[in-house]
């Protein structure tokens, strides 16, 4: 994580921007591929920005989609930051895919930019977890639909407290994701999960997180299936948890 604003500003003003994460600059490129972003569709290339050797990324013919995984929570809003040159005909759209399953929960068209920066606020989610590790995964996508040129010099995301902002309602939590009650789960029930540390050793009491599970471990599932143990890696933490998931026999 790279802080974008000087520390003393953060201390004195406690600005939300202090937690911005910079996704651009020289870390944009790792050799011939992007370091933090994945190309889901289309093509990309290196392009000069203000300096011929300070490369940004240009998005190829439409459709081109680049994406990056992130997390959301119920108390903070995400601010997406973009610096680049976006033609009016590029039809560039910022998309938010909560749980990274495919459906787009939020869209933000990117306006025409001439080496300007622009930031957009992404909504919070309405799930409130009792534990501070209770975040939900999401995917950010930049989707180019049009023929206009796009050169991106910097992309960033940060969080800030926004308790008054309208949240995205989450009522269909997939199996394996954090939950507060069983009625939030798409299937099964909301129950405690088994925690292990990075070395695979079980963590003791005190870590009280619940996630949607299809079934209890080693129990029978409907349709002749059986409940197996599924392991999920924690986002941004060195740890993992396990939950029950029905699998065909």
């Amino acid at each position: 994580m790279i802080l974008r604003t000087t520390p003393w500003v953060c201390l004195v003003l406690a600005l939300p921007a202090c937690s911005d994460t910079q996704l651009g600059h020289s870390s944009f490129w790792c050799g011939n591929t992007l370091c933090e972003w994945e190309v889901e569709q289309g093509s990309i290339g290196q392009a000069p920005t203000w300096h011929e050797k300070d490369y940004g990324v240009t998005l190829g013919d439409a459709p081109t989609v680049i994406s990056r995984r992130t997390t959301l929570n119920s108390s903070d809003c995400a601010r997406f930051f973009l610096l680049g040159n976006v033609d009016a005909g590029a039809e560039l759209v910022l998309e938010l895919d909560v749980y990274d399953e495919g459906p787009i929960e939020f869209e933000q068209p990117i306006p025409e930019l001439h080496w300007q920066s622009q930031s957009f606020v992404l909504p919070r989610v309405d799930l409130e977890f009792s534990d501070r590790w209770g975040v939900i995964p999401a995917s950010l996508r930049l989707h180019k639909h049009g023929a206009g040129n796009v050169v991106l010099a910097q992309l960033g995301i940060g969080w800030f407290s926004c308790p008054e902002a309208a949240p995205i309602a989450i009522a269909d939590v997939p199996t394996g994701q954090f939950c507060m009650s069983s009625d939030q789960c798409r299937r099964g029930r909301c129950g405690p999960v088994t925690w292990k540390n990075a070395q695979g050793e079980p963590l003791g009491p005190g870590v009280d997180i619940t996630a949607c599970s299809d079934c209890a471990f080693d129990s029978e599932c409907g349709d002749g299936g059986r409940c197996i143990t599924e392991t999920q890696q924690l986002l941004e933490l060195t740890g993992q948890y396990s939950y029950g998931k029905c699998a065909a026999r």
Partner: protein
Amino acid sequence: MRPVLLALLAMLAIFFASSGAAAQTRPHPIAYAVVVGSNPGGAGQQQLEYAEKDAERVAKLLVELGGYDAQRVRLLLRPDAGRVLATLDGLKRQFEAHASRGEDALLFFYYSGHARADALNLGAQTLRLGTLRQRLTALPATLTITVLDACQSGAFSRAKGASRAADFSYNSMQALRTRGFAVMASSTEKELSQESDELKSSYFTHHFLVGLRGAGDHNRDGRVSLDEVYRYAYARTLAATARTAVGGQHATLETELMGQGDVPLSYPAAADAHVELAPDFDGRVLLQIQPSGSVIAEVTKAKGTQLTLAVPSGSYSATVKRGEKAWSCELDVKSRAGVTLDLGRCTAVADGSASAKGAGREVWNFEVGFGFGAPPEDAYVKHLHTFGFSESYGPLITQRWCEPALFTSGAERRLTRGLGVFARFQIIDHCEFRRLDSAEFSYYAYSLDAGVRGRLELLDWLTGYAQVEIGPALGVTHLSAAGTTETIESEEANFGFHTRASAGLMFLPWKLGGFFAEAGYAYAPLIENELGDVHDSGGFAVLIGFHIRNTRTE
């Protein structure tokens, strides 16, 4: 018989006295001049600067104030020995004609140039003094006046003339002395003769001519005699050269005129125009012809007597120095008129040393300085901020590198008291930026300017100045970006120009120089980015530094 004899003798005395006086009140009816000037020296002799100019001035003054017919003045510039002798031989027939008619005829021979112990150096050729003597004495002239401004060349001050070991002046006078001869030489056997860059003349010839213009008219009878001009030239040449590194120069005169008595050489009272120095005036005056700046007179006058200088009509500038004070005056001298130098109509100037002969004048000055600049935060810099760069901080917490430390180093050539030209190399801009991903970007901007500087001397030790400069400029940028898999290093050069207008003060308490401080505004569109922004490396700048004077001693 005895009273009759006494009466007859008295009548003869009165006759001769009156006839002699009459002869002295008008120019010579028949006077010839051979005036020779030669700058080139022989082997091992440095070329002179003003010998030929001095000859021209002497020839001109003989016509202007000496009563010489211009047709009878032979000016020989850079001649060979044969031409000098041929000229003298050519005059022989004319002198014989005058003699046959019982007419008195005078010959004035002047030489300015190099010489050795027993010969004049006319470039690569030599003219032996014995030969010259033979030709001069062969002429049936009533009176022959020879003026020699020559001695050994030296390593300093373009000294000219004979070697110290062999006394040119002594030998030449011994060689030429004969009946009806007067020989004036610019120095003794122990000395060198010198030229002055300030006077643009040799010291001796300059004062010889000033004396003939009236400064040497000791008895104020309106004419300057051989004896008077010698005394004047002797004193003034000695006083002027005593301050030089070569040392004092004593003019010499030996005459054997056999009843010729006082010989008038010029008649300043009959001149077309005059510059008067009133009896109560005292000080040193440098009188220069405008606009050429040629020095026509440099005299020092004490209170009590009026001094009249015969000059051609025209425009003159006079610089007057009295103690530590100095004045500058413009004089418009009209034909058949005189102008009195009146300090009340002069402008006080701070630096009198520039006109004081021997005190030296600034020719080259050198400057080195440091300062701070404030280039404008233009679109180029704003875009750097947009792309995540922030200015780095220097050793002082409050000093950003984008408030760059400047450097200047240059030289100035003084053209006149108030005007000079200069050239200087400068570091005009420097800035360092950093980005949070460890990328670093910096630029330097340099210029090589030429400019014009106007000066106003406010006090003896304080001079104000204003200047403009322009020149080519170079901007060098460096980008270092540490990527995940590779480090990008990029250096680019941008070419443009730099121009600045500035004003400042020089604090010059010492002869060697002092300090300067200046402020100005510059424009230097130089460094360009990929977005089409051009950074102006100019802006406000303040410089302080050392000003070193290189003073030339005359």
